[in-house]
């Protein structure tokens, strides 16, 4: 048997390609070559595999010419996780049928890096690779033992967690599996583990007393996946509100959880044990962060950025006018499309980015309140303020759905405590209505539905449409703003458990978008009682 084929996965961003690893062992000049556009790390697989095979008690074909082809050959491939597929293919190709049992490799994907003693080491991205394999109809996957739990998150996949090459070969041949020393988990995962996530479970919206306006805005944003811009002097509670938004989001649906866990797996941020991440994430990068860290990229393998790590959760950019201009500019497209594409040479990587983006800004760089009697006066330089204003009102702000100005809290009004649990129930109900409406379309939330589809299939009634048109004609609303108002009107209807948006919903959506005050009574009703219809039934 001179030729054998195994399968591996090449990842480009979150997209996985099925790769055939073909090995030909035949007479000729004695050498080993790898073709099919490997990167430096993958080229070194030759040496790793050779020693791993030798140290596992197998024979490397030392007297013949070994050709390793990674096909499709024109696709660039990077990473060390091809080792296992290469080593197994070499062994399978060099089996002498008269002396040894064959090594069956069909319907199987191999993932893992080999060490010189034949041990199988963890590698980043096992979950998205397994997902890609499952999508291509592969039903078996061999992975390093510490990542078996991670791969097992993919339904319908038979996962074999192995410690060494010898164990893999024995398992393939159906022989008793030899013992091997345990493999340590990936060191990166503990370094980048999800710090602060536990703390977020302990904070509650009840801490925000007497800010019905901001609570309502947060609820709407959470219900429909809308982006939010919070302005206000320092100490107005912008951060307090933002870090409580994940708490009012429902648990992730199984497919959402898998997507997020795959992204975390790619960034090496998955907690050890590879459990499915069920709670919506929260990321709050500092304003010094680079475009690469927020959007994704990096040298070598393209890694997802904070924006993607907040997929289905909340990305909070505090003091967003202080972020570098290229970061702010680069956020424009993902905010519209819900994904990030990092193009580089002939390779482009796409990561999902459907988190709620919450921007916060002080009214000026120094953050002192600009109005009010006896208030601290702003002492900023005029030029700085102009630059700050330009960023604050720039194109990014136009892509935000909800604009709210927060006032520093006073004592708060008696008898109006709203808990996260209550708001979460409102958000969950509103999201359920959306999922019912968008079943089979691929969209989950109102914020995801494209403009044209929204207009055709879920239009506003005549009066509402005219209200929006008038606002556009009067220059109070941009075209982009009109779409956002339309989407938000649906969210408001969903929150109130109505069959469609009313003129009042459109008016409220306009107010949310323009930063105008809202009608107090409906806001308090929703926050304290929930949808009017159910409350009436209860009465």
């Amino acid at each position: 048997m001179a030729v054998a084929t195994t399968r591996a996965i090449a990842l480009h961003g979150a997209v996985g390609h099925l790769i055939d690893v073909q090995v030909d062992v035949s007479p000729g000049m004695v050498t080993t070559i790898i073709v099919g556009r490997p990167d430096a790390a993958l080229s070194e697989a030759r040496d790793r595999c050779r020693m791993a095979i030798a140290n596992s008690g197998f024979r490397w074909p030392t007297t013949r010419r070994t050709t390793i082809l990674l096909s499709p050959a024109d696709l660039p491939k990077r990473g060390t996780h091809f080792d296992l597929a290469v080593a197994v293919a070499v062994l399978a190709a060099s089996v002498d049928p008269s002396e040894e049992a064959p090594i069956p490799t069909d319907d199987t994907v191999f993932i893992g890096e080999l060490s010189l003693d034949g041990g199988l080491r963890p590698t980043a991205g096992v979950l998205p690779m397994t997902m890609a394999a499952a999508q291509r109809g592969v039903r078996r996957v061999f992975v390093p033992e510490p990542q078996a739990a991670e791969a097992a998150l993919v339904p319908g996949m038979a996962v074999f967690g192995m410690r060494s090459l010898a164990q893999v070969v024995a398992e393939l041949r159906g022989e008793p599996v030899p013992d091997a020393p345990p493999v340590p988990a990936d060191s990166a995962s503990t370094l980048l583990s999800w710090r602060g996530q536990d703390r977020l479970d302990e904070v509650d919206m009840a801490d925000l007393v007497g800010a019905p306006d901001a609570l309502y805005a947060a609820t709407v944003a959470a219900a429909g996946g809308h982006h939010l811009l919070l302005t206000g002097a320092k100490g107005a509670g912008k951060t307090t509100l933002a870090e409580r938004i994940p708490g009012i989001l429902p648990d992730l649906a199984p497919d959402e959880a898998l997507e997020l866990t795959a992204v975390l797996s790619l960034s090496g941020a998955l907690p050890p044990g590879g459990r499915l991440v069920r709670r919506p994430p929260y990321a709050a990068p500092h304003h010094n962060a680079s475009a690469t860290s927020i959007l994704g990229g990096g040298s070598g393998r393209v890694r997802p950025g904070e924006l993607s790590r907040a997929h289905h959760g909340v990305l909070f950019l505090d003091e967003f006018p202080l972020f570098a201009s290229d970061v702010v500019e680069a956020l424009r497209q993902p905010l519209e499309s819900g994904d990030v594409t990092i193009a580089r040479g002939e390779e482009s990587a796409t990561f999902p980015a459907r988190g709620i983006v919450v921007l916060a800004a002080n009214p000026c760089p120094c953050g002192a309140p600009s109005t009010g009697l006896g208030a601290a006066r702003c002492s900023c330089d005029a030029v700085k303020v102009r630059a700050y204003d330009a960023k604050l009102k720039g194109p990014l702000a136009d892509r935000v759905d909800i604009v709210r100005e927060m006032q520093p809290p006073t004592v708060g009004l008696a008898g109006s405590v709203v808990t996260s649990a209550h708001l979460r129930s409102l958000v969950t109900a509103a999201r359920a209505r959306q999922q019912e409406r968008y079943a089979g379309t691929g969209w989950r939330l109102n914020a995801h539905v494209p403009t044209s589809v929204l207009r055709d299939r879920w239009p506003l009634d005549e009066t509402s449409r005219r209200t929006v048109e008038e606002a556009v004609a009067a220059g109070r609303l941009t075209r982009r703003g009109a779409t956002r108002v339309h989407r938000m009107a649906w969210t408001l209807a969903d929150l109130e458990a109505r069959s469609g948006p009313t003129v009042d919903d459109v008016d409220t959506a306009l107010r949310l978008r323009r930063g105008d005050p809202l009608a107090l009574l409906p806001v308090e009703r929703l926050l304290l009682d929930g949808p009017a219809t159910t409350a009436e039934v209860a009465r």
Partner: protein
Amino acid sequence: MSDADRLARVALSHLAEPGDVRVLRLVRQLGATTVYEGLCAHGGLDAVLDGMPDGVSDGAGGAGVDLAVRLGAVRPEQRLEQARRAGIRFVVPGDAEWPTGLDDLADQPALHQRGEVPVGLWVRGPLRLDEVRTAVAVVGARRATTYGGSVAGDLGQDLGSEGWTVVSGAAFGIDQAAHRGALAAGGPTVAVLACGVDRAYPVRHSELLDQIGDQGAVVSEAPPGATPTRVRFLGRNRLIAGLARGTVVVEAAVRSGSLNTAGWAERLSRVVMGVPGPVTSALSQGVHELIRTRAGLLVTSGAEVREAVGESGEHLLAVPRAPLGPRDHLPIRHQQVLDAVPVSRGATVETISRGAGIGTKEAGTALGALARAGLIEQSGAGWRLSDAAWRADRAEERA
């Protein structure tokens, strides 16, 4: 006041509509007992009125008929006792607790045919009405915005924390926000209702009304059990205005009940105030009209309300003004010279004097003074602005 008078007033409170000018005026002129006994004896008021001098019965026509309709069912002692057991007291003019501010309602022309001093007030809660030292009514739209709600809450809180009493109507929107602000600050607050004080209207505010009943006072002219009718709200508004030294309207559309309250405050010569909003907001239109064409005083904070309503000379506020920049102290001709001094590269006295249009000699003197003030500095052979002056200018540009 005698027991007979009190019982007669209890009976009349059940018989007459709150704020019915015809009846209340008769009560004030003839006395409650006379009116009530006349009613009992004759089944109507006509006989009572016959013996009176001219003028007393003006506008009282028909009042007797109205009263007689309910006459049979009233047992005043029993009603008073029932109320007492429910923790409700009945305060009448002449009682120590009677809020004398309401006496100003006597002989005021009616609004919507409502007016006059009530026969008495049903009160629930520990706050004594005569101890309502400095009260301010905070009223406004039921359909208020979050802006109005937060302003009313802040007003209530500021007044409450200063020990002032917040009077309002416990309605949705502005009213409840003002009450809640006062309660949050631990301040006294009075809710004046259009229905009986034992009823919660609106139903959603039953918890709020309980809290006011525990810490402040819930007041009504209508007897316990009375339902809130449209007309009773109009009568109620005059009591809100009458109990307070001043009335603040926070948000009101052009046709709003809170403007009716403001109208009463005007008639009673109390301070009428309005909190402005965006000129584009329909809910602030009524307030803006109040400020523009009527007696409304523009206020933006609790401190301003206290200044307007407090005893003259108390609670005075400092006038907000921008801090003076270094240029503001200079004589005008020195300012002219300073304007001509360049920012970066130094200029000679001659160049500066030409730029300022001032003689070289005077410019030289001015430059000396400016240098001593630290506004300019020597640069090579000439003068330029100092860093401090330049920074101050930039800051001013911002303001």
